[in-house]
């Protein structure tokens, strides 16, 4: 849109010229022409006409002046522009995004780091309750490129750490590099989570029911179990994924009937790589809301001993499935410890106490759960019960007898309330049983608050 400097006058002159061209002047037209000439002179004093001139001559002079005024006011012709180069088409062109809640009131603002926390209150029957800020974990990552990525997890346990004191711990749970090559073949190296079981690699508090992690995934499969190592990962298509690592081995000096494998993790501290352990997990996630996993682990654990070098091997099968409001998850794990008899003798000589390590440990659990509220509701209330059976002395080496107190069962019943998908308020009551008629385990009440961000 071009703006002329004298818009009204231009219109009037144009009109007059048009009318003048059609008919002879009248006194009224004569007056209007004079007024226009005066106004033109106000704008340009050099403009002159004379009453001696004819009507046509005065109109022609005014027309000429008007043309020159318009010419002066006309903006210069725009510079010819080169047509913008057509952007190269992306391999996949976005057409629309709907339901993107980033711009809605529901969206969250994310910190540059992620993390999870959980605080617990545990009360064994007949004992005073204890509150504990169990885990404060921060996760950091960095992408060196699209194909080289770093990920880490740093944890403070039990909220307080003091040098030389029995209190909490600061632990590096993960710190590794991923070299992403092909969907079906990638490399990973660093401090890795051992790919065994359901919870070890998926341990964010809102991800599982119950204040404490399952007993089977504490004693038979340790969690959080991390070791130094390297290996391969990939997605073979059709929902089949795998992870296979060579890792630092467990430490046999810390095996026991009481704690099973849980204390034997090196967690990357002075971890022996003389006989690296092999760990493999294959998962099938080809059907929506169904994940099946098969895990295997084997490694020599006697790096601290000269006379005995027992192998610990684990095989486990697990699964998770959700159908409408129902969830079901379960796991079975079996652990074999070779040379358990010799190991017990060495540990007895070393510690003065018999560790009574079994040659085979076994555990399983099943956990049905129901979401009380429909899926579309923002809050979630999950009622669950988990039945666990585990025995750290399922089989004993020759010359050793199992103790009935280590043949254990537990029934954990409770709820998880999620006011937000990433916040879990948990309650459960644990009925503990064992096969002993002498040593009775205590039932326990647990409350927990955990969140992910």
């Amino acid at each position, binding site marked *: 849109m071009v703006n002329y400097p004298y818009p009204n006058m231009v219109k009037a002159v144009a009109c007059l010229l048009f009318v003048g061209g059609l008919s002879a002047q009248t006194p009224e037209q004569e007056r209007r022409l004079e007024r226009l000439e005066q106004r033109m002179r106000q704008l340009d004093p050099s403009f002159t006409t004379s009453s001696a001139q004819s009507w046509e001559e005065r109109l022609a002079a005014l027309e000429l002046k008007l043309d020159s005024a318009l010419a002066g006011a006309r903006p210069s012709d725009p510079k010819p522009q080169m047509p913008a180069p057509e952007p190269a088409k992306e391999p*996949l062109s976005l057409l629309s995004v709907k339901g993107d809640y980033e711009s809605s009131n529901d969206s969250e603002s994310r910190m540059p780091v*992620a993390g999870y926390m959980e605080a617990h209150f545990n009360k064994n029957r007949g004992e005073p309750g204890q509150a504990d800020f169990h885990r404060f974990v921060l996760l950091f990552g960095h992408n060196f490129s699209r194909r080289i*990525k770093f990920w880490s997890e740093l944890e403070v346990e039990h909220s307080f750490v003091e040098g030389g004191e029995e209190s909490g711990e600061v632990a590096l749970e993960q710190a590794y590099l991923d070299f992403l090559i092909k969907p079906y073949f990638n490399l990973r190296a660093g401090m890795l989570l051992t790919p065994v079981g359901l919870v070890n*690699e998926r341990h964010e508090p809102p991800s599982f029911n119950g204040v404490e992690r399952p007993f089977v995934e504490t004693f038979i499969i340790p969690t959080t179990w991390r070791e130094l190592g390297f290996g391969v*990962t990939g997605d073979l298509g059709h929902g089949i994924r795998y992870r296979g690592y060579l890792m630092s081995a467990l430490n046999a000096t810390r095996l026991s009937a009481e704690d099973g494998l849980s204390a034997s993790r090196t967690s990357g501290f002075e971890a022996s790589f003389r006989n690296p352990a092999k760990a493999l997990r294959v998962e099938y996630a080809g059907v929506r809301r169904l994940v099946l996993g098969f895990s295997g682990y084997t490694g020599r654990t006697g790096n601290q001993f000269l006379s005995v070098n027992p192998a610990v091997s684990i095989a486990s099968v697990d699964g998770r499935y959700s159908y409408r409001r129902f969830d079901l998850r379960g796991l079975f794990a079996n652990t074999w410890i070779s040379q358990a008899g010799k190991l017990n003798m060495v540990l007895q000589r070393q510690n003065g106490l018999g560790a009574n390590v079994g040659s085979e440990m076994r555990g399983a659990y099943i956990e049905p759960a129901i979401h009380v509220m429909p899926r579309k509701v923002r809050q979630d209330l999950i009622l669950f019960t988990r039945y666990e059976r585990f025995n750290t002395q399922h089989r004993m080496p020759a010359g050793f007898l199992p103790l009935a107190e280590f043949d254990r069962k537990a029934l954990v019943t409770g709820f998880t309330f999620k006011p937000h*998908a990433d916040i879990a308020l948990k309650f459960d009551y644990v009925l503990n049983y064992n096969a002993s008629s002498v040593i009775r385990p205590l039932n326990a009440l647990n409350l927990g608050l955990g969140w992910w961000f």
Partner: protein
Amino acid sequence: MRNFSLCLVGLLCAGAFAEENKDAPARTIAITAERFVFTPSKIRMKQGEVVEFILTSEDTEHGFLVPGTSIHAIIPPRGKGELRVKFVANRKGEFFFECSRACGAGHNLMRGSIVVR
């Protein structure tokens, strides 16, 4: 006259179908995002095909990013709806998509691929 009528009907039908293809709804594919897996994780489509992904989360907030393209959006957490991403495949090849929101211990491997043939 009969031939002319047939031709006219044919042209109208062809025009109607052409219009229908232009505005045809994209093929929709439901994808579930969950720590640390997309299901399905491998999507096959044809060059020039318009596809709409309907992404829902089973747990936390996840991202949906196709590196090298402008496709990047957030999958809301469970109970907060879904994400619909519609796009057209211009070129043949295999393209990755990945979670762009830190979602937990296995975040780096939460990936999938789109195979365009």
